[in-house]
């Protein structure tokens, strides 16, 4: 029944004219919560180009995108979980764990690269399933589930390796994160960038599919979604699995990019969540655009580059970062507070307070 009523609204994209789609896109980019992040992104990039024009040269841009790709992929994964109304704090630990697993199991042998990558994907899926099932079936808040998972992964991986990573990565394993196709203008077209583009396309497609709409509906109002026949637990568990699989992909890229260090992945969960929120995605679920989440990650990475280009003392950077994040999110919140969504009941959320 719900299917029939929703069918017209789901109208497949190709039916619309190109013009209205472009208008749609513009509205999305500059309206709502995600407008702030694109504006901020443009400002930050403009500032970088002014400070250091050579950054605009293709090789520099490619190098920048190569290093930013893992966080962007992580943010996309985090987006799926957040938009469904949950948190995934375990991704940082998972990235670290996966890199260490890769190094220990590959141990420098080229032939093991592919089997180990498959194994890592399997492990990622397993972690996502555990996160998702504990959250949905055992009704443990995801903040706690994934906090627990973060501790377990952190401890277990070090327990296994005795505290410091062992083994070595193979050259083939390092290619996706480090290598690319050598081209004339850009010097190198990184594999990481192509993987990122692939992930973005798939993510956008998934969010346009019925699963994506169900996911947002679940995050917006779990009850209502449940009443309309959505199997909430399956939808959310799948979101956790997507997040863990993308974290695995990010691990492959980071491990490839920089090799194994003991600290890899530490604190990335907070950066990823910050990136997603910066992209105008509401913590608590139900609202946000996956491309904006990715743009949030790109903005953060660009911000770090800008700090660097400005030769800002490295100790003061966290403070500036804190101010910018709060300001951006506050600005976006102000935008959102304007009555725009007619289908929602605006009156109650508008009432004044002390």
């Amino acid at each position: 029944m719900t299917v029939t009523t929703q069918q017209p609204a789901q109208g497949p994209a190709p039916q619309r004219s190109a013009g209205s789609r472009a208008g749609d896109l513009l509205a999305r980019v500059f309206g709502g919560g995600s407008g702030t992040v694109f504006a901020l992104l443009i400002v930050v990039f403009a500032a970088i180009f002014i400070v250091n024009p050579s950054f605009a040269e293709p090789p520099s841009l490619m190098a920048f995108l190569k290093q930013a790709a893992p966080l962007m992929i992580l943010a996309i994964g985090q987006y799926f979980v957040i938009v469904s109304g949950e948190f995934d704090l375990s991704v940082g630990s998972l990235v670290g764990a996966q890199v260490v697993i890769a190094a220990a199991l590959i141990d420098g042998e080229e032939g093991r690269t592919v089997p180990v990558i498959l194994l890592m994907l399997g492990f990622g899926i397993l972690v996502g399933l555990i996160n998702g099932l504990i959250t949905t079936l055992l009704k443990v808040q995801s903040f706690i589930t994934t906090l627990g998972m973060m501790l377990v992964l952190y401890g277990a991986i070090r327990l296994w390796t005795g505290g410091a990573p062992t083994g070595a990565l193979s050259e083939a394993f390092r290619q996706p994160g480090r290598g690319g196709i050598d081209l004339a203008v850009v010097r190198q077209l990184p594999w990481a960038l192509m993987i990122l583009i692939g992930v973005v396309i798939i993510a956008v497609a998934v969010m346009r599919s019925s699963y994506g709409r169900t996911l947002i509906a679940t995050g917006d109002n779990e009850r209502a979604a449940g009443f309309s026949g959505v199997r909430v637990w399956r939808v959310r568990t799948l979101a956790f699995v997507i997040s863990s699989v993308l974290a695995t992909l990010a691990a492959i890229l980071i491990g490839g990019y920089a090799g194994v260090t003991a600290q890899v992945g530490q604190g990335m969960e907070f950066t990823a969540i910050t990136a997603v929120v910066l992209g105008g995605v509401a913590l608590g679920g139900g609202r946000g655009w996956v491309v904006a989440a990715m743009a949030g990650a790109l903005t953060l990475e660009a911000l770090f580059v800008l700090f660097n280009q400005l030769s800002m003392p490295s100790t003061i950077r966290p403070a500036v970062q804190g101010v910018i994040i709060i300001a951006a999110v506050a600005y976006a919140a102000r935008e959102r507070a304007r009555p725009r969504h007619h289908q929602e009941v605006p009156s109650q959320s508008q009432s004044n307070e002390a």
Partner: protein
Amino acid sequence: MSRAVAVAGTGKADRRRLGATELVWLALVGVTIIGAILVALDGQNLFSIANTRDVLSRSSLLGFVAIGQTLVILCRSLDLSVGYVMALSSLIAATTMNGDPARVPLAIVAVLVVAGAIGLCNGLIVSVLKVNPFIATLGVGLIIKGYLDTQYQGPAGEVPSSFQQFGFSRIGPVPLSTLVMLLVAVAGILFLRKTRTGYHMFAVGGSADVARLSGIRTGRVLVTAHVLCSIAAGLAGLLIAARFGTGSALVYNSGYDLESIAAVVLGGTLLMGGRGGIGGTIAGVLILAVLDTVFNILAVDPFFKDVLRGTIIVAAVAIYARRQIDRKASRIRFGGDGGSGGSAPPGSPPDSAPGDTGDPVPAGQGGAR
């Protein structure tokens, strides 16, 4: 176990509230007994004076932070800046005292004022600027971190020996710091039960919209909770200064932000607010302290500790959640909105004392914030 609990939960609402905290204390007893057996198998005694002292002294620092964290979590907020506030407070205390016993009161006042001001910022950013508390407190934490990193290259200041007694004195087996922590906890419990603002915290956490409609100034309540939370973290910073004999910025690396949230949730307070209390939090803190001591006596590998701690926290919350589902089955509730401020559902009116009506339980299990 959960079945027995479910039966107990069918009594009057008032009884059920007690039950939530009792369950946590029961868990504490369980953990202690299992720990004691394991320690006994190792040929030692968990209840020896030395080990009891150890448990208590390990609980005090986290206790202060967790008490404050409970208040903000009750209001459906959270505070990730506590670690930075602790570090800053320890440095302010140590540098203000600078080895002079006469300056101790001044230092304490300075710490409480600065910590309170940070809490005020947190609260205002969350309630007025409508920034999600996760981001707001993370951001404020980063700002403090920037200040600390720029300003201090290492431990600074000196705490006079008279104030170090706060960190090292004991009365019988009970460390002074633990006593003070328990006093603060008692004050906190009284605050939640006996004052209007305290009541209102439950209501605001249950549903901010409903609370607002029933005339509660939600913003003011939220700001109060944040101020108190930061002040509690400031007290923790004072304890750090007393124990270290100096102030240290690196405290922020020790993970007290997440650990305090874990302790609060372990203590039975709902992460999405509206239900719980400081009594449970103290039990949660003690559970973590007992675990710490037992692990230490048994010389458990430090990394295995993390694995166990993570598992235990999740398992405990799963048990609490099971209990809640049982209760929810007997009570028809309308959908909560996951905290995003859309449509406000007609929930149970929270305007009367939270003790005797149904507690406003948000329906969305994971719609944390």
